[in-house]
């Protein structure tokens, strides 16, 4: 008889410990007894899968039994959690069936989490024994754990939104209300076309998003063309530009625009005094939202299009020229068709980003509503209509997912510019003269605007009142960031410190998880074969297209009540960061893995190293650029995120961005701007430090990806 393998034995033991020794309910406060001692009979069957697993491991291995037992354990865990919650039976038909409100139980806690993990790993082991993932337990386990986490933290919440959309505010099933809300003229009205009323919020959103998509693409193209096809020294400038959108909290640009172009803005006042033009509020609404979003998202389009333009082999253009085509004809007949899919891609990214943007419309939208802000006010506004919020969220999700699917499937097959890193000889054709002048004409004013906006962000918080009273002052700075000496020593008395520190704390905690999740997923996608790999990839990348406001509402709906209750904790904020920013890690990981020859990991495997050792010893050392990218981006994006967390923050876990939006919302621009400037500077510092740190530790002779490309791969979803 063979000695039973160690892996399943260990996890059966851990599963048993979870039932016998770990508090089953509660995560931090009010911990309960372990499952088997909690006096809850419906938890007892959970011991059975563990016993069956033992039988399946001892003696002749019986992977079928192991699979059935562990899957059964998971199923029972989920079922009892969904059916029995804190107020009894979840579903009305169960109440009717049993004639009572039923048994109750609080939200699951550590015990349940550990037990679920044990079951998942046993299931992975059983499947691996049957040849799943080429019989590799580590791969199977990683895959199941990642899939489980995505299911729990992306799909379950989205399902909760769908479910709540068909309920009324009291929780009853009301499909006719759903239809009424879905078809409401406030969403779909086209009255603005006839001029009488405003249009529905869905059309507003689509119109702005399309406008922003077109404008960012054109501007991005102008930048990319000038950078690659003229002699203008653009490299350092482009690098700076490519970093800006990452470290800038999303609403800051809107704020700066108000201070510049608002009715009492600096430039408005100046021009008003000069020409005696009546000051107007033109910036509030579509113009403001569009300008702010174009400022924010153009650098992303630029990075995408730089990549696309670099992918056009110069030899093609040279060939065209040797065939007696003029420069303009070459551009029109060769270059343009080749970059067209890239343009569509850039348009869709701008479209999705604009749709998902929450903070700029909130700050500068005036009376113009878009879906993301409407969702917010449906929840927190005086009408308190969660059903409407859910319906709006579904509409928004439908738009972004459509764009996302279009981008992945339609464009995925049409990209001509996928030359696999092979160098092409030749010099890119210079731009035709007219086009070059047009590009300069667009870029120069835009750069001036960008400089004005960021200048305003940096100095706006240090004057009494921008435009009206430009006396320098530190008042706002001290209000936010003062340090005082009290009885117990120095302490941070400024109003911003608490949120600042909590933000960094949570961003730091989310950082390793985001990176690990992203890199592991990339590794699974690039290096492993398993059934449903395409679907898995699509689902993993999909969270890019779920707007933050939707995730925020979804998390409240899903995690406020048992079976999983996390609201009010810092954990849920960290989790929302991890899953929202995961695609960044996946992108970085995939880009890096594709440069590492597959035979390296195969060599390691045939040398007797398990896949875990292979990953740790062979791949991870070479994946370091991707790991660093993923860590940096997850940190920075966590610090600047606002849309999802605005629903999740609490007193103890108040975040910097939410604090700033709150200040800006009541018009306290001084503090908002000074705090934003501090955040921008802080993040610049972080990026610089990491650049220094990583710069010193380059490994081997591998050619690093030029830094300008890194954000492109990290941000571009396709």
């Amino acid at each position, binding site marked *: 008889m063979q000695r039973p393998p160690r892996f399943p034995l260990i996890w059966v033991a851990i599963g048993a410990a979870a039932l016998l020794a770990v508090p089953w309910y509660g995560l931090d406060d009010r911990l309960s007894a372990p499952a088997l001692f909690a006096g809850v009979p419906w938890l007892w069957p959970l011991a059975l899968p563990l016993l069956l697993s033992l039988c399946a491991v001892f003696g002749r291995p019986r992977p079928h039994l192991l699979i059935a037992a562990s899957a059964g354990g998971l199923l029972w865990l989920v079922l009892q959690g969904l059916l029995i919650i804190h107020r009894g039976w979840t579903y009305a038909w169960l109440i009717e069936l049993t004639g009572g409100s039923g048994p109750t139980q609080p939200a699951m806690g550590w015990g349940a989490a550990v037990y679920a993990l044990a079951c998942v790993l046993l299931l992975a082991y059983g499947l691996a024994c*049957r040849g799943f993932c*080429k*019989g*590799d337990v580590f791969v199977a386990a990683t895959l199941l754990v990642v899939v489980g986490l995505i299911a729990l933290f992306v799909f379950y919440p989205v399902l909760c939104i769908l479910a709540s959309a068909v309920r009324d505010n009291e929780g009853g099933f009301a499909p006719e209300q759903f239809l009424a809300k879905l078809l409401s003229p406030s969403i779909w009205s086209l009255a603005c076309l006839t001029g009488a009323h405003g249009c529905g919020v869905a059309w507003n959103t689509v119109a702005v998003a399309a406008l922003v998509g077109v404008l960012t693409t054109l501007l991005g193209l102008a930048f990319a063309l000038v950078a690659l096809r003229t002699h203008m020294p653009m490299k350092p400038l482009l690098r700076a530009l490519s970093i800006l959108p990452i470290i800038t909290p999303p609403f800051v640009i809107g704020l700066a625009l108000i201070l510049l172009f608002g009715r009492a803005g600096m430039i408005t006042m100046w021009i008003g005094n000069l020409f005696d033009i009546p000051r107007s509020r033109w910036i509030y609404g579509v113009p403001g939202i569009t300008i702010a979003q174009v400022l924010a998202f153009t650098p992303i389009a630029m990075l995408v299009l730089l990549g696309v333009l670099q992918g056009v082999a110069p030899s093609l253009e040279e060939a065209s020229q040797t065939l007696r085509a003029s420069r303009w004809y070459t551009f029109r007949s060769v270059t343009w068709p080749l970059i067209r899919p890239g343009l569509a891609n850039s348009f869709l990214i701008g479209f999705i980003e604009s749709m998902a943007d929450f903070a700029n419309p909130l700050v500068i939208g005036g009376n113009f509503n878009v879906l993301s802000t409407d969702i917010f006010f449906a929840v927190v506004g005086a009408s308190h209509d969660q059903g409407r919020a859910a319906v709006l969220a579904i509409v928004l999700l439908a738009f972004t997912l459509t764009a996302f699917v279009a981008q992945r499937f339609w464009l995925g097959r049409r990209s001509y510019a996928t030359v696999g890193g092979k160098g092409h000889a030749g010099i890119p054709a210079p731009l035709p003269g007219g086009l070059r002048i047009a590009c300069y004409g667009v870029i120069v004013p835009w750069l001036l605007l960008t400089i004005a906006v960021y200048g305003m962000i940096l100095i706006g918080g240090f004057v009494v009142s921008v435009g009206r009273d430009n006396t320098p002052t530190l008042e706002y700075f001290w209000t936010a960031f003062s340090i005082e000496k009290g009885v117990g020593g120095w302490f941070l008395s400024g109003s911003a410190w608490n949120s600042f520190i909590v933000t960094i704390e949570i961003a730091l905690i989310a950082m390793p998880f985001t990176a690990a999740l992203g890199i592991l997923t990339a590794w699974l996608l690039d290096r492993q074969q398993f059934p449903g790999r395409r679907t898995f990839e699509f689902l993993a990348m999909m969270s890019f297209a779920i707007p933050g406001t939707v995730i925020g509402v979804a998390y409240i709906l899903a995690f406020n009540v048992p079976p999983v209750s996390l609201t009010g904790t810092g954990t849920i904020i960290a989790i929302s960061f991890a899953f929202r920013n995961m695609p960044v890690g996946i992108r970085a990981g995939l880009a890096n893995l594709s440069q590492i020859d597959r035979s390296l990991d195969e*060599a390691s495997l*045939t*040398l007797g190293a398990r896949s875990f050792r292979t990953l740790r010893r*062979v791949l991870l050392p070479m994946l370091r650029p991707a790991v660093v990218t993923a860590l940096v981006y997850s940190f920075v994006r966590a610090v600047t995120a606002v849309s999802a967390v605005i629903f999740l923050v609490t007193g103890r876990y108040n975040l910097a961005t939410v604090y700033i939006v709150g200040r800006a919302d009541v018009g306290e621009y001084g503090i908002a701007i000074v705090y934003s400037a501090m955040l921008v500077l802080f993040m610049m510092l972080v990026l610089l430090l990491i650049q220094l740190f990583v710069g010193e530790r380059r490994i*081997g*002779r591998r050619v690093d990806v030029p830094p300008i490309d890194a954000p492109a791969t990290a941000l571009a979803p396709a």
Partner: protein
Amino acid sequence: MTIRAVEFRAVSKRYGAVTALETISLAIDRGTLVTLLGPSGCGKTTMLRLIAGLEQASTGQIMVEGKDVTLLSATERDVSMVFQSYALFPHMTVLENVCYGLRASGIRKSRAVELAQAKLSLVGLSGYGARLPSELSGGQQQRVAVARAIVLEPKVLLFDEPLSNLDAKLRRHVREEIHELQRSLSLTVIYVTHDQQEALAISDRIIVMSMARVAQDGTPRGLYEQPNSHFVADFIGDANIVPVVIEGRQNELASVRLGPLQLTLPHHGAVAGPAELSIRPQAVLLSRGTSGLSGRVERAAYLGSHMEYWITIAGLDKELFVIAQDVMAPLGVGDEVSLTFGRTGVALVPREHLELG
């Protein structure tokens, strides 16, 4: 029953609708060097990766040393592989690369270093341990890859086109080194290549593959002299394929008519009627007499060690390619010649419906 080093039992491999291997059954003896030979896409690399455990068979069973490894992962199989790209870990030194497998199997460091050093000196690289792979030449990298594979003393050693990244001269040299190593250590080696010369030079046995199947399996000499198909005849060495008619069969032999010549050859399963004859260029003997087929020299080339001729024959719409050793008194273009055939190098192959590569 003797235990075979590797055995395939009705193994097939499919990727979706594409079949990479179609029901292969074969066995490989211990201590032999077997080559998998075929054009790209024939399934030879898939077969190698199935043995290594880098792919999993869709159906069938794979045995290594009598043990069923079909469901085992690559890690769990006692098989090592030398990759076409060598796959040396770029961030580890040569010594760390060679120690890697030993450390992964839990051997303590000092012992692992000792074993690794021994193997490095076996491949003539002692003293190179501290270098990074990128600091070695192609041939040296190749030898590190071999040392890294054999240090684990695997039951089976696999080579995936190991010479394709080397220049022509080095290739012959390294080829002989591998052959030498295999013989002195009595290793079971399975070697994938698409270069038929390489295969002929080192193999105990060659398995020719085509279109996901085994086309022919045998010794280098057997394959060269007695190809059993148009494909094999054409793929290994040069061959003139000439249409003929089988007039009768007797036991293993068939009588074939080619112009005025009557030949008696093993029939390899070909039935009476139209068939094809594979004629090696060396098997054609040229003379100025009239005893055999009469032909005419169309072109001639002098290659130093031998002559090459292209000869037309009346009634045959194809030129015959002929190699002659006599460089002292070569034939000239336009000369009338008489053709006869040597005892080896002429084989009957069944007529194929499809013209293959």
